[in-house]
């Protein structure tokens, strides 16, 4: 399992535009910019160890990425992935819903991974596909959906 310190070190090397806003021995929070296609987006990235005191929350199970600005645009009438593609829908502000970057049932991510090498580039993938979806109405990045409609429900 990678420590918070290892995660922070890797992030600083690979993604210098991300700054650590909060850190402890069990969790870290970054803010930074990512491009995707060409326009820079400001994101938050939250990581926590499984035994974090709030370990029942989403960030203790996997890193949580949200797009802060420009705000995500909901398109309720789009043919594919309406109103927003591949997120864990979260109320009350749906535009801040965490991005769904991997399939939990495929073991594509674990706490042995560095977020700098997985979560952040995957978020860039998501942004690129999101911009394509906005421009064409189609989600070209593939993926699948679980059955649940709530953020903490990830059953297949």
């Amino acid at each position, binding site marked *: 399992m990678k420590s918070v310190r290892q995660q922070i070190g890797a992030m600083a090397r*690979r*993604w210098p*535009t991300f700054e650590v806003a909060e850190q402890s021995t069990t969790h870290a929070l970054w803010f930074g*910019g*990512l*491009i*995707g*296609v*060409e*326009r*820079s987006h400001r994101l938050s990235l939250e990581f926590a160890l499984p035994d974090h005191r709030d370990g029942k929350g989403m960030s203790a199970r996997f890193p949580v990425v949200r797009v802060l600005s*420009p705000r995500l645009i909901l398109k309720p009438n789009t043919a594919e992935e*309406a*109103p*927003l*593609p*591949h*997120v*864990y*829908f979260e109320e009350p502000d749906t535009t801040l819903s965490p991005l*769904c*970057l*991997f*399939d*939990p049932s495929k073991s*594509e991510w674990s706490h042995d991974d560095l977020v*700098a*090498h*997985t979560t*952040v*580039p*995957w*978020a*860039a*993938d*998501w*942004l*690129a*596909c999101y*911009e*394509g*979806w*906005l*421009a*064409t109405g*189609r*989600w*070209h*990045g*593939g*993926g*699948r*959906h*679980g*059955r*649940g*409609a*709530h953020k903490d*429900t*990830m059953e297949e």
Partner: protein
Amino acid sequence: MVNDGTLDIPGTGAGDMNNLWSNPPLGPTAPVGEILLAGTAIRIELPPSLHQLAVDRYEAIRKHIERADSPLHDRVRIFYPQGSMAIRATIKARKRVDGFDIDIIAELILPLSLTPAEVLDLLFAAINGPPGSRYHGMVERQTRCVTVYYADGMHLDVTPTVLIDERAPRLSCLFHAKAEEPPASHKRVLMNSFAFCDWFNELTPANVSFAMAYAERAAAFDRIAILADAEVKPVPAHSTIEGGKSTTVVALQLLKRNRNLRHEKRKGMRLPPSVMMAKIAAETSVPGASIAGALESIAGAIQSTLEAAEREERLVDVRNPRCQDERFTDRWPENRQAQRLYIEDLKLLRQQLAALMSDSLMLDQKRDLLVAMFGEGPAQSTVDEYAATIGRSIQSGNRLVSPLGRIVPSVAAAAPFVVKSGPAQPRPHTFFGTRWKG
């Protein structure tokens, strides 16, 4: 490259326009706006397969005119493409969704004593032929040319000319005879489009790396068109690269498309002439410029030329550099208002272009700009293709991620530009998510 596909490419992230514009031509790291401009130009231009079809068709017309019972038998000295066809800047016709205008000169051996109307009528009779012959009923006599219409929307404008001076190659006159005007207003107009096209092609040589990158994209798009149209013959791949296009020619195609779009609803108004645009484009041609850079400098130069005339309260006067008596602006602008209108069009185009090339807009906003500049069909199709390419590269894992997070499709294509090592290509992943309950 070590371990995460890190690229260190100048200008691939948030940067100023100059940085963005200096990237390798149409490579995977080229600015998005540049890739969209190339895609749009490819969708509006005469594709390699139809270029060959046009050549076959004008060769067939030449043979038809020279047939034994033709009134012009043994009277054709030379048949050659002029205008857009000669500089390879042909785009879809203004009034047709799928058609192309092909301009051909038929240099005839005729006495100069014939009236303009007689020459045009003679050419019309030669092409139209007797009832039942190949082109009968497909032909229309125009003011300066004879047009042959094809069912697929292509049409060939064949302009008759007569050589004026044997010692000055291709220095000719064309014939102006509007049917409803009195013969007194008919005239001969001096021209040397052959020499102009030579001059243009000399000044706008293709940059090899750009020409190859553009030709490969054009050929790929053309293959799709060929599959959809059984009548079109494929052309050898090398012919799309050999003597490929310069950024100036591609930019000129886009500028003409924009002009056509702006004038679509201006009924009865003449278009700013393509040949005037081509002349100014060649004068501003910079080897190796990007499409966006070429488009900006051509539009800027035309705007300056028109504004200079406007300041002097006159109409612009642009002439053939190889035949000073040939005035390219003899029929446009009709008046100062038309001149001012095109100045405003160019100002708007340049503003839109600057926005298209900036890194502060998202892809859907760039799509809207592209639609406004060049029309919905080619613009949306280009953006669809771009989004699909990005998506495929992500799904297959065949993409790199720049230091600022830009997704660069196709590892193989990007490899020459990798200069900084880093972690590997991010490993594949599957987008997931909850379903929307609303």
